[in-house]
């Protein structure tokens, strides 16, 4: 496929995939779909089912509750995981800010992907821990 080596290089630069050797990364590249979004396009829509898992490659996205931005995500960040892991609907819109490139995996394929690439799953575990710490500030 065109651009496989470039995509492998691109993913290898992201923390999420930092533990993967190149052959495993090649498998990941073939499993994920690259997508492109123009400025202002919704990538995830609050309340709509059947959503997927996304990793941001280029550009920024705004996480919005109504008109209110609650978070801004940048290269290397993932989103869409909560709806899939919890079997719920997305709680917010995620909107492209400027042009955005992501890699995407269908919701039903996520668990299998994480099991096949446990290093990636562990990185997500660490990141969720970090996000939770940030959200609760200090708790026991």
């Amino acid at each position, binding site marked *: *496929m*065109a*651009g496989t*080596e470039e995509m492998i290089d691109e993913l290898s630069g992201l923390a999420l995939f930092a533990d993967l050797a190149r052959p495993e990364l090649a*498998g990941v590249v*073939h499993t994920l779909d690259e997508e*492109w979004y123009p400025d202002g396009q919704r990538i995830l829509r609050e*309340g*709509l089912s*059947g959503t997927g898992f996304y990793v941001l490659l280029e550009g920024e996205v705004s996480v919005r509750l109504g008109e209110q931005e609650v978070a801004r995500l940048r290269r290397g960040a993932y989103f869409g995981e909560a709806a899939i892991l919890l079997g719920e609907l997305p709680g917010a819109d995620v909107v492209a800010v400027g042009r955005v490139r992501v890699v995407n995996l269908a919701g039903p394929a996520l668990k299998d992907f994480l099991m096949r690439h446990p290093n990636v799953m562990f990185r997500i575990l660490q990141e969720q821990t970090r996000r939770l710490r940030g959200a609760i500030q200090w708790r026991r």
Partner: protein
Amino acid sequence: MEALTERPFPPGDYPLVVVGSGPGGLQASYSLRRLGIDHALITADDSPGGMFRRFPFFQRLLSWTKPYAPVPRDSRAYGRYDWNSLIGEEPAHRSIQPELMDGTSEFPSRPEMEAQLAEFVRRTALPIRYGCRWEATRRDGDRFVLQTSDGEYRCGLVVFAVGVAEPFTPEMAGREHVVHYVDTRDAASYAGKRLFIIGKQNSGFELASGLLHWASRIVLASPRPAKLSVETNSLAGIRARYVQPIEDRFMGGGVFILNAAIEGVERDGDAFRVRTRATDGGADLAVEADEVIAATGFVAPLRDLPALGVATFGQSRLPAQTPYWESATVPGIYFAGTINMGAPGLKKNGVGGTGAVQGTRYNAQLLAREIAERHFGIVAPRPRLAPADVVDYLLEEATDAPELWNQKGYLSRAVLFDGDGPYDEGIVPVQAFVDGSGADGVAMTLEGDAEGVVRPVAYVRRRGAISELSLDPDPLNEFRASADARAHLTAGLTELLP
């Protein structure tokens, strides 16, 4: 005699130019012509058919045309059972494919498909300028200028229906020893050979299936495991027809399937050695083969369009498109046919729009309608609906509409509301409806859920906010007759239909 007539569409000024004479270009041009839009249709080929002039090599098409179906052959609903004929607006233009099949299979052969497209051109008297190769593109004020082998075409709008059939072989050590799928020869010439096929998507399995009878050994390799369409409950993955090599591998018949990246290919006397690196924890191997074939896919032949500003993405370098198949970055450039894969839609549960004829022909028809409205002021009628009929109408569409069935969660039947009540907005791309800010209304589509079960889904738009209403599946997909579906949908529309 055709030879005596002038070739149509000499270089010059046109409101619109369609480039390409495969199913996408033919359907777009036919639909534009029916709407009275003056345009040129040019192609580098010397006959119609696009990719079907060459592919597939072996087997039949993966898209069916069933001679016997539950609905009449010239009905709109027959499009669910005939994935190959272009959409004609007169009876003589419709459902041509079943007339041209030899009756031995519900899948046309490649020549039968090519013949159908040629017959469509003949019956519709669709003018096409053959042998006119698009070479370069530039802008001149608000016009596009297409440089072709016959000269320059200047136009306000372009529809590129150029397919995704430019062969691509990835960089690797020893790439010069690898032959691409497009250069596959007659099957008998592979008799007794040990083959190494790089790539485990449909083209790789098509080759393996077609050469199973001839090759002494077949190794298929790619970094990730093959997924089967029967597992994904969609068209994504290896189609059922090509599963034979997988079965052969279980039985030890000489097929081997590796999850591996290719490190390199070297000459080894008269043969080759392919070095692989496993991606699934297996052993790294060096495999001997008489021929190494790259079934590694294709890219869209966009020439200098990226330099003009057309954004592309993905391993096939697809142009990024709006829900109405316009370039997301260069207004006025539109796309039809396989290349519509650059507008995958909402991709609910991973299922997006198809690149195959059964879907893209409806896209092209809609594209023509949209271009006519947006650029030429030709507005399609929006018939009124009696409020009491709205629910039944939507359920009828969910039961029968080929636009809804052939691409799940991609196209919808939309009913909007104005001061005088409901009207039929027509077939609307789901993404356009869901992200649009138009009038209140409802868009009915069909989607596969996370388990692959098909159900009708209605998107209700009320004061700009969208809600999703998923109806129950029906074992025979007879949603029109389902009291539950009627009750559920009626309840979901009470704000629109008090």
